[in-house]
């Protein structure tokens, strides 16, 4: 394949250090790519896409009220991370996750961080994710955030920053695992030559963690899914399968007589641990949102009586609130006495007067996010927004300042992506997955999400994003 001069456009490129030179971790890959005959890479791309469709690696979405399925777009040019760089990231991620857990435990119990005036209490108790039902509760093994997806970006200065934390049902790991299988089949020669850290351990580590938090020795474990029409259903089914646990919907279970039971053809069987992929509020129509059809009435009571364990613990979302995010560096300092190894993106918290003033006068250069939205919704990208959009957003901020944070637009790094017959840079981020059980395990690499549209910065699957395989060289 003929690789002409590559356009960097002023962004940090993961592969190219200059228009023609590849970074050390990419050198072998580049050579290999150049040696591929014309049309070969397109052929392989097509094979991959067909395979994704056959395997049913899709996500569900709603277009004009009609349920549709689409393959989660995948680009075959991987994102490669060198060994030294990864070691630093891994340390930083472990530090962050560990501190977040201490924070959550403290908030629902002693509240030392509030008493020591490190974080204003209103910020915490006004968060939608704060669950008063969890006051005074300590989950098994004192762990709240069993599964974490910490979104990282690399800025034009070449440094990694944490973009946001995800402690509430972070999704995407199934794509990591399946993408890797696909890549191994499509580029076997690469894997044979490079020493890419494998990812197959993830389901095992996940299962180990679920065992670890159980209240009983031989637990029956299930994965609670909203069902086949949920956008991440494929992942729920995939992980349940890989771990050999039951895939359950709310109506498969009933809480009665102090425990939670699964309806089987041979009577009721007790379930001991649930990996739940349902939002906190929908877990239990009896004790939480009464309109929920997805949960199990009475589940929360059984949980608080320690007759069932839940991963992640309800109430964990307090740490992935976008406003709390701004305080994480302080949180790490407070509980660990350390500076964060991976910095936050500079963040302005609109509930603080001086920050609010700055944000309102500088909307042109800022990205403003609503505290509790996900999927890229409720966001304003200042530099790309119209005057009208900016004015409307100012009103929203003034009406509810606690709900908004703002960050300068970061120059997301790019990775070459196949566009027709050319390689063009597309912006990416990185979501490593971290499992907190007996130890803290960081999956090597994670999901590299790529904004497939030229110039776009939005990487979410529901808004035109795709993914790439992430290779960490051992």
């Amino acid at each position, binding site marked *: 394949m003929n690789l002409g001069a590559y356009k960097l456009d002023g962004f940090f490129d993961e592969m190219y250090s200059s228009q023609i030179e590849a970074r050390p971790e990419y050198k072998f890959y580049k050579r290999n790519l150049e040696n591929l005959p014309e049309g070969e890479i397109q052929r392989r791309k097509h094979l991959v896409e067909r395979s994704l*469709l*056959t*395997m*049913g690696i899709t996500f569900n979405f709603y277009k004009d009220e009609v349920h549709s399925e689409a393959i989660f777009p995948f680009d075959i040019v991987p994102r490669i991370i060198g060994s030294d760089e990864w070691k630093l990231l891994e340390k930083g991620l472990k530090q962050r996750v560990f501190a977040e857990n201490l924070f959550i435990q403290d908030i629902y119990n002693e509240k030392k961080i509030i008493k020591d005036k490190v974080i204003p209490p209103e910020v915490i108790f006004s968060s939608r994710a704060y669950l008063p039902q969890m006051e005074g509760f300590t989950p098994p093994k004192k762990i709240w955030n069993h599964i974490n997806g910490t979104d990282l970006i690399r800025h034009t200065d070449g440094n990694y920053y944490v973009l946001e934390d995800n402690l509430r049902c972070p999704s995407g790991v199934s794509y990591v695992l399946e993408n890797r299988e696909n890549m191994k089949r499509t580029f076997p020669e690469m894997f044979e030559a490079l020493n890419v850290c494998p990812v197959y351990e993830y389901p095992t580590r996940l299962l180990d963690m679920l065992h670890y938090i159980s209240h009983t020795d031989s637990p029956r474990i299930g994965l609670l899914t909203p*069902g*086949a029409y949920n956008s991440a*259903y494929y992942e729920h*089914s*995939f992980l*349940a*399968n890989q771990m050999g646990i*039951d*895939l*359950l*919907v709310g*109506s*498969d279970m*009933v809480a*009665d*007589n102090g425990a939670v*039971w*699964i*309806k*089987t*053809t*041979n*009577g*009721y069987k007790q379930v001991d641990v649930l990996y739940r992929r349902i939002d906190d509020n929908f877990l239990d129509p009896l004790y939480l949102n009464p309109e929920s059809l997805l949960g199990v009435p009475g589940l929360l009571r059984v949980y608080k009586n320690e007759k069932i364990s839940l991963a992640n613990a309800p109430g964990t979302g307090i740490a992935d609130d976008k406003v709390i995010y701004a305080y994480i560096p302080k949180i790490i300092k407070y509980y660990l006495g350390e500076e964060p190894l991976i910095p936050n993106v500079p963040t302005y918290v609109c509930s603080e007067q001086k920050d609010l003033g700055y944000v309102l006068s500088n909307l042109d250069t800022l990205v403003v996010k609503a505290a509790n939205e996900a999927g890229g919704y409720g966001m304003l990208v200042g530099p790309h927004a119209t005057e009208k959009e900016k004015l409307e957003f100012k009103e929203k901020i003034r009406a509810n300042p606690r709900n908004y944070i703002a960050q300068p637009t970061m120059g997301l790094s790019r990775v070459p992506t196949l566009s027709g017959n050319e390689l063009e840079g597309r912006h990416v981020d990185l979501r490593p997955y971290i499992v907190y059980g007996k130890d803290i395990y960081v999956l090597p690499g994670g999901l590299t999400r790529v904004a497939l549209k030229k110039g776009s910065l939005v990487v979410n699957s529901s808004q035109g994003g795709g993914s790439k395989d992430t290779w960490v060289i051992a």
Partner: protein
Amino acid sequence: MLTRVADSIFWMNRYIERMENNARFIDVNLSLSMDLPQGMQEQWEPLVQVTGEYELFEELYGEPNRENVLRFLGSDLKNSNSILSCLYSARENARGVRENLSTELWEHINSSYINIREEFEKGEIFQNAAGFFKKIKTVSQLFIGMVHSTLSKTEGWHFANLGRMMERADNTTRILDLKYFYLLPSSQEVGSPLDLLEWHAILKSASAYEMYRKSYGKIQSREIVEFLILDRYFPRAIRFCLIEAENSIYAITGTANRTYSNTAEKKLGALRSELDYLSVAEIIQFGLHEYIDALQSKLNDISAEIRENFFLQKESPASIEQWRNKEE
């Protein structure tokens, strides 16, 4: 196994079987219609009549003709028993329980659905009906092959078998009933070439032609009825299906032979037993169409009992003690 999973596996297999039967059925009768004498050609009504969906058909299309019958039975999603509807339902059921299936099985049913849907959109059923129906049969046969060679022969496998056998028994009754709906002009007699032609088609609809010939030789209506209802070796004979279904239901509950532990087993066992000791003379005397009607009714009954006993949960877990002891 989860009741929801058992339910889905049961229905997935029923839908695939139904889809295959519909395909074979339409295929054979399309072929039959070409051999019919002038004036008798284009008898599309019986094809729809025998599925029991005639009312719906009339509502949607009015007068039957080749194109609209093919569309109705083939790709119309408003007909929940059309080929495409069955395949779609099977696939949706599979998707909800895919962690209980092998990868091959899931990928097969998923890609088949995508391919067949594309073929329908291209109008393959009209341009190359015979080739198209063959594809459908292959989808089913591959599916069955995979069930047999990639699923452990435990509870899930037995629910699959139970579903398929119940559906197959029902389908054979419909195939036999076709004769009732094909009108014979009064000038024609039983045993006439036309009559024989129709019986021929019935055998082919059940893929029974060669096996029947080996057992009986001459095409005679009485013997055909005996073969398709009472034979215990031929895989599409109703008695064979009931024996298989019974074996599977016993495997699921662990019940001993000649007893029953729930109402589904009771009714299934009773029907199987009835066929064990029935003669074709008695069927003919009762009236073929009437007997088939009664059979279909009993089969429906058994299906309802299966649902009641295995897929719905009646007792509350407060009676858990009883189950816990059972386990120990």
